């Protein structure tokens, strides 16, 4: 069996035909057998999501593709949208078939307007091959929070991109309050490969809980930045060797809401749902980089991108940024004060309404965990 890849060419429309021949329940079984988990970050099992949505009560159902790709350091969906858009549309059409849905929406981030004509062309081509499905193209407005699935749905509905309370989840109440499958671009691109090449081949690489090939967006202090495809579970050491990382101090894995892995201790950790988040964003920081300015940049991102709906996130991000600025100026910090901010980090994780606020303190907490001595002078 050859190494599975989602970047190889497939004949357009074949997977859709095969899905119709197999029947909806068999498609779901095949996805479950592949152990595919969502590629947008949270890693929910895709087959199970499709099963829940198929079983949910309701005549009208929808399919949504999340192409908001706003996570700091992520650009792997850009490659798929530019080179494999037909695969993504085909994955969406298969989801629509499984649900008996007529409409499938692509929510594309504002920044990707430049690819509009090509996307519309691929959309028309796939509509000709999957005539039962009507594709819609919606653009975002430059808001990171709209990548959060319920905020994205609000945005398609013509509202402010503010996350909803959960539950209910989109599988029972999503777009226009109807059961909705919402998946990442890469997740949809995996579907035609799994149906045509078999679940077993897809699941032949990876770790016990993370199967298949995975795309990674790698940038920062490396000689060869770009999009790479590796099997799930690859070690950080091998990734850094492949991109020719230079004099690494630490790696930010998972973007703004991710965690850091320091070069001294973490090179043998692996990228998987069991260990370092395999969401796709990998930013390498060399030894010459200033730790505090990197942290300030991340906190600044959150202060701007918080939707402001709930207090722990809105206030927490703002206070934390100020504290980091204080550290940056080299001002006195007491142990008690630092502990208060670490506690604030925990409060934000546990009491924010959506994943943005829940993850906004991760970088702060994990950087101080590794580099407290280098970053703050504690004076009591």
């Amino acid at each position, binding site marked *: 069996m050859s190494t599975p890849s989602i970047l190889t060419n497939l004949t357009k429309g074949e997977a859709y035909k095969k899905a119709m021949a197999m029947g909806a329940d068999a498609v779901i079984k095949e996805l479950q057998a592949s152990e595919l988990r969502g590629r947008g970050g949270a890693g929910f099992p895709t087959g199970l999501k499709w099963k829940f949505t198929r079983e949910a009560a309701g005549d009208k159902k929808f399919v949504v593709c999340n192409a908001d790709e706003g996570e700091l*350091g992520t650009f792997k969906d850009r490659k798929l949208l530019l080179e494999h858009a037909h695969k993504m549309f085909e994955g969406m059409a298969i989801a629509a078939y499984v649900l008996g849905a007529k409409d499938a929406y692509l929510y594309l981030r504002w*920044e990707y307007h430049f690819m509009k004509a090509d996307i519309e062309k691929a959309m028309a081509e796939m509509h000709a091959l999957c005539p039962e499905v009507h594709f819609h193209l919606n653009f975002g407005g430059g808001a990171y929070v709209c990548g959060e699935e319920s905020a994205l749905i609000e945005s*398609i509905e013509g509202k402010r991109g503010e996350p909803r309370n959960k539950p209910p989840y989109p599988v029972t109440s999503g777009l226009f309050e109807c059961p909705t499958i919402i998946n990442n671009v890469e997740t949809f691109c995996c579907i035609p490969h799994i149906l045509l090449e078999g679940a077993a081949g897809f699941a032949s690489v990876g770790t016990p809980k993370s199967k298949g090939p995975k795309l990674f967006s790698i940038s920062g202090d490396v000689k060869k930045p770009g*999009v790479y495809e590796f099997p799930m579970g690859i070690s950080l050491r091998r990734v850094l060797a492949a991109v020719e990382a230079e004099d690494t101090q630490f790696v930010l894995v998972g973007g703004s809401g991710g965690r850091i892995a320091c070069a001294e201790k973490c090179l043998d950790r692996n990228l998987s749902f069991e260990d370092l988040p395999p969401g796709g964003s990998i*930013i390498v920081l060399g030894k010459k980089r200033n730790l505090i300015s990197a942290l300030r940049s991340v906190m600044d991102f959150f202060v701007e991108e918080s939707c402001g709906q709930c207090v722990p996130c809105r206030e927490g991000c703002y206070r934390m940024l100020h504290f980091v600025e204080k550290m940056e100026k080299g001002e006195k910090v007491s142990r008690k004060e630092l502990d208060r901010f670490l506690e604030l980090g925990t409060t934000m994780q546990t009491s924010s309404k959506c994943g943005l606020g829940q993850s906004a303190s991760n970088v702060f907490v994990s950087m101080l965990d590794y580099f407290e001595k280098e970053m703050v002078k504690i004076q009591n």
Partner: protein
Amino acid sequence: MSETPKNAEILSRYGQDRDNLMPILHEINNTRGYISEQDMQEIACHLNISATDVYGTATFYSYLNTEPKGKYVIRLCKSLSCDMAGKEKIAAALEAAAGCAFGKTSADNRFTLEYGNCMGWCDLGPAMLVNHDVHTQLTPDKAKEILSQLK
């Protein structure tokens, strides 16, 4: 920008359900450069929702303009990878070439300079958007050259 479509013509192409709001806002923004309060009232009438609702939605999205901006809105990425790739020098070159500071519009209304967050080009930073166009691997000279081509 004299031959831009009138609201009545734009609105006539959209249905009256609320999910038409974002596409309408995008079209007005992209053809006329910004969405005025008058536009918001007319959209509200068409969709049968309050003008405040339209305003609240339009202002939520940082890339939808609700006030006039320059002919070219330049958004330089200031997030981590582009910052590491040298966005500071690009910012200085852009300010010199546009003749205005970040957050401002040039006196001849040609350029508005803004910062944006990660644009999906971190492998080829520093990156910026000029309206919908992307420019990557910027150097100060390249940034100046790009602005000099924009009439």
